[in-house]
Structure formats: structure tokens, C-alpha cells
């Protein structure tokens, strides 16, 4: 069975079929996701947009193996790394130490860890900050370390849960650029969750619009804008505007019901 599936999944890095996740809540079921189906090709950057409560984070948790599907199937080819809105660095380790731990847990030899960690931190432009602890870094730098740590996990798929939502606009824009650059260099598959339609259009090859309560893919937008993209380009604004309208429509619907 797995053979057949693997053949049919070829080229798919992430595949989700009829995924439903429900939690017991005050003796009734809270349905976070219902019948979600999506596929992400290898090397693709796909964004998921949805209002809060649309189960976006639940989707990533299931894909990362942190939660179980109630029904349906969620499958990821290869290793997964996960980034959150908070950098979630271990505060007692330095920037390099955080990256090295990811390497250690991956089984990289002690003698090689330090050098690889330094190289990864250089790739996210943090040379000179290897010895700093997280609380000595700015929010943007912490997310850079988190990005380096995600790369250190040598994952095939990077799941990102609103990783730049807490940053100021300029820092966020720069990190978008950095992320796209790293994505193009590494050929990573990225599933990027956000509530910001512009961010989604800026980054994604495709944008999946999620409904709220229960979360489901309501709409898919293919973004054919050439890269590098600018947040200020009118074409981008038009697409983002359409997605935002769609989101408002969905939110209105769910609050009516």
C-alpha cells in the first residue's frame, strides 16, 4: 500500500486528504479543521491565509506530528521543521548554541557542529552575533536565529506559523526577502501560514484561503507575479485585495452562522 501511495505522491512534499481535527470542549466537539485537502509540490512555497480560529496552526501541528488527525490523512515526505510567531529559542543557549543543538539532535558529529552553526548564522546575516543569548538580540534577529535553526534541522519541509507577525513592518519586509532567497537557494518546500493577505501574495507560489470555524480550504489563488516581488506593487495589492475580500466574506458567513 505504501509503495503505491509513494508512487502516486511523487512530486508531492505535503499531502493532506479529508483531514478533520476536533477537540472535546465543554462536552461538545470543537471542530478546528473539517475535510481539509491540499497538496504542496516539492520545492513549492505555499501560503495559507485565514482569520484567527481557522485552524491554521492546528494544520501545521498535525503536519509536524504534534497533533493527531481525528479523521483523514496528513502526510509529509521527509523531515519537518517548524517556526512560530515567537522565535522560541532556548534562552540559556547562545545563538550558535541553539543552532548547534538542532545539529546535535540530528546526529551531526560534535567536531563539525560549531562550524556548521556559524555558517548557517552567516547565511541569515548574523555574523558577529554567534555568542549572544536570545535576550540580547532584537526580535528580528531572534527570528533569524530561528530560521538558521530550522535550516540546521536539514528539513525537507519548513512549516511556518505566522513567524513574522510580531515584527515591525521594515524588519518583516527584509525577512521576507531573506526567506525567499534561502528558499530559492535550498529548494526547501515551505508551507507558510499568515493572516496577512499581502504577506501571503508577496511570498507564495499559491495562496490557500481558509474559512473559519471549522477551517477548510475555501479558495485557491495562483500567484504568477515575477520574483522578486515588492509589497508595494499594484499587481500584488490587487491580488491581496481580492483575497482580503474573500476572507471578509468568509468571516461574515461564519459569524452569521
Amino acid at each position, binding site marked *: 500500500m505504501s509503495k503505491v501511495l509513494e508512487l502516486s505522491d511523487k512530486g508531492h512534499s505535503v499531502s493532506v486528504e479529508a483531514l478533520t481535527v476536533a477537540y472535546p470542549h465543554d462536552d461538545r466537539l470543537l471542530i478546528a479543521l473539517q475535510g481539509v485537502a491540499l497538496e504542496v509540490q516539492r520545492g513549492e512555497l505555499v501560503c495559507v491565509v485565514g482569520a484567527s480560529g481557522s485552524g491554521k496552526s492546528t494544520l501545521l501541528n498535525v503536519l509536524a506530528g504534534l497533533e493527531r488527525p481525528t479523521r483523514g490523512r496528513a502526510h509529509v515526505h521527509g523531515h519537518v521543521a517548524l517556526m512560530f510567531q515567537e522565535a522560541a529559542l532556548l534562552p*540559556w543557549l547562545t545563538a550558535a548554541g541553539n543552532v548547534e543543538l538542532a545539529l546535535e539532535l540530528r546526529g551531526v558529529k560534535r567536531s563539525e557542529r560549531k562550524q556548521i552553526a556559524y555558517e548557517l548564522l552567516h547565511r541569515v546575516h548574523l555574523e558577529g552575533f554567534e555568542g549572544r543569548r536570545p535576550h540580547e538580540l532584537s526580535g528580528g534577529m531572534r527570528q533569524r536565529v530561528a530560521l538558521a535553526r530550522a535550516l540546521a*534541522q536539514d528539513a525537507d519541509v519548513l512549516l511556518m506559523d505566522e513567524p513574522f507577525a510580531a515584527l515591525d513592518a521594515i524588519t518583516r519586509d527584509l525577512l521576507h526577502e531573506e526567506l525567499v532567497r534561502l528558499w530559492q537557494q535550498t529548494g526547501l518546500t515551505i508551507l507558510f501560514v499568515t493572516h496577512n493577505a499581502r504577506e501571503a501574495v508577496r511570498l507564495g507560489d499559491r495562496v490557500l484561503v481558509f474559512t473559519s470555524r471549522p477551517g477548510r480550504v475555501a479558495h485557491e489563488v495562483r500567484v504568477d507575479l515575477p520574483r522578486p516581488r515588492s509589497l508595494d506593487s499594484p499587481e500584488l495589492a490587487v491580488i491581496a485585495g481580492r483575497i482580503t475580500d474573500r476572507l471578509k466574506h468568509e468571516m461574515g458567513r461564519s459569524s452569521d452562522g
Partner: protein
Amino acid sequence: MAEMAVELDRVEVDDLEQRPRVSRRLRVWSSLWPKLVAIALALGLWQVVVSVGWQPDYVLPGPGAVFKRLAQDLGTANFDLGVAVTLRRALFGYAIAVAIGSLIGILVARVLVLRKAIGAAILGLQSMPSIAWFPLAILLFGLNETAIFFVVILGAAPAIAGGLLSGVDHVQPLLIRVGRVMGARGLGLYRHVILPAALPSFVSGLKQGWAFAWRSLMAGEIIGIVGHQFSIGQQIQFARDFADSEQLLAIMVVIFVIGIAVDSVFGVLDTAIRRRWGLLGSEA
């Protein structure tokens, strides 16, 4: 462009660093003077009570007489031996309490059944004055050092286990998720994420455990005179028997100073860890 971002960040972080730093000497002084004032106040109050003549000098001598006596005592063989005996007991009992407390803490944190069964019991034990165990300890072990160790351990171990347990309980769930995503499971997750995250709370438990151990030891030594070992507690009891107030107060000063000294070691350790963990907020 990306370089610019880092430059921006760099400026931001350098700003943090260039905030005028208080010089080291000033920092030491600012943490020292309240203590000096407190000591001066206590000594002053003591002297006032003595000067008022509430009790005759041979019952309540003034600080001058007591410190003179202390200076004489400090060189004598008996006195130093007493301090050595008591410190040895304190260290040995405390070390065992740390071992037992940590082991229990980790087991209770890790094993759900144990946690339900004895998690609350540990808290309960903490509220039990450990000296209340002493009569039982004497029946169980006889009037000897083992009984004293028993009381010391029962005093300190629950606090130590409790500190570790609350540390493990309050690890940010996000850090655990990160650890799991990075592939840490079971003991690896404990080693790399949970235990380091719990360390500040564990150190608080160690500090509290020391305070309990020291109190229990003093109570045990004063109540239970063991063998021919001339411990501090035994000496203070003898001083009372001979109505030698100067000696009694001199020993009390020693007990106080030892307690404070060890406590401040824990204080330094605690601050160092909190600073390293970024829990101190902005450094000032």
C-alpha cells in the same frame, strides 16, 4: 538590503549595550549598604535594650561584650571543632537531601501515577516542621547522628523536590514543542530542554532546602545531644545550662553568619542563572 536589516538590528542592539553601565564598585556598594544599615540598626537596637536595663548584664549582655567573647572563642579548639562538626553534618545531610530530593522530583515529574499519588504529599511534607519528626527518628535510629540526618533530610528534600517539580511544570509549552520538532524525545527532551528550563526554579528549591536543612539541624542538635561531638547546637545548649549568656549569644552570631553566608552564595548563583536565562529583564 539584508545587510541593511542587520545594520538596523545592530544599531538597536548596540543601543542596548551603550546604556550607561553602573560601575562594578557602585553596584557592590548599592547592594551592600542596605545590609550594613540593617546590621547597624539591629546592633543599635540590641544596645538600646541592654542600656535601658531591662535585664541584668549577665542575662542579656550587650553587643560589645558578646563580640569580645566571640573573638576569644574563635581560636579555641573546642569552638572550632564544634563549627566543623556542625558544618560537616550540614553539608553531608544537605548533599543527601539534594540527591534524594532531585531523584524524587524527577521521578514524580516523569511518572504520571507517582505524580498523582505523591505530588500533593510532597507539598504536605513541606508544611510539616521537620523537627516534629525528631522524636520518631530517635525511636527509629536511636539518639545518634543518623536521627539528626533523618530530620535534616526530611526538612530539605521536599523543598528541593518541589522546586524541581514546579520548574518542570512551568516550562514554556512552546519550548517543549520546539524540542520535539527538533527530534528530542523522552530523556533527550529532559536533558536538552526541560531540565535546563527548570534550572532557575530548581536553584530556588535548593536555596529553600538549605534554609530548611540548617534550621532542622540546629533544632536537632539543640534537642538531641549526640555522643561526644561538640557541635554548635550542643554548645549553645551547654551555654544555656551554665547560664553563660555571652557564650550563647556569641554562638548565635556564628549560626546567623553561617546561614547568611550560605544563603548569599545561593543568591549569587540564582542571580547568575537568571541573568544567563534572560529572566532579569533589563540589566540595571
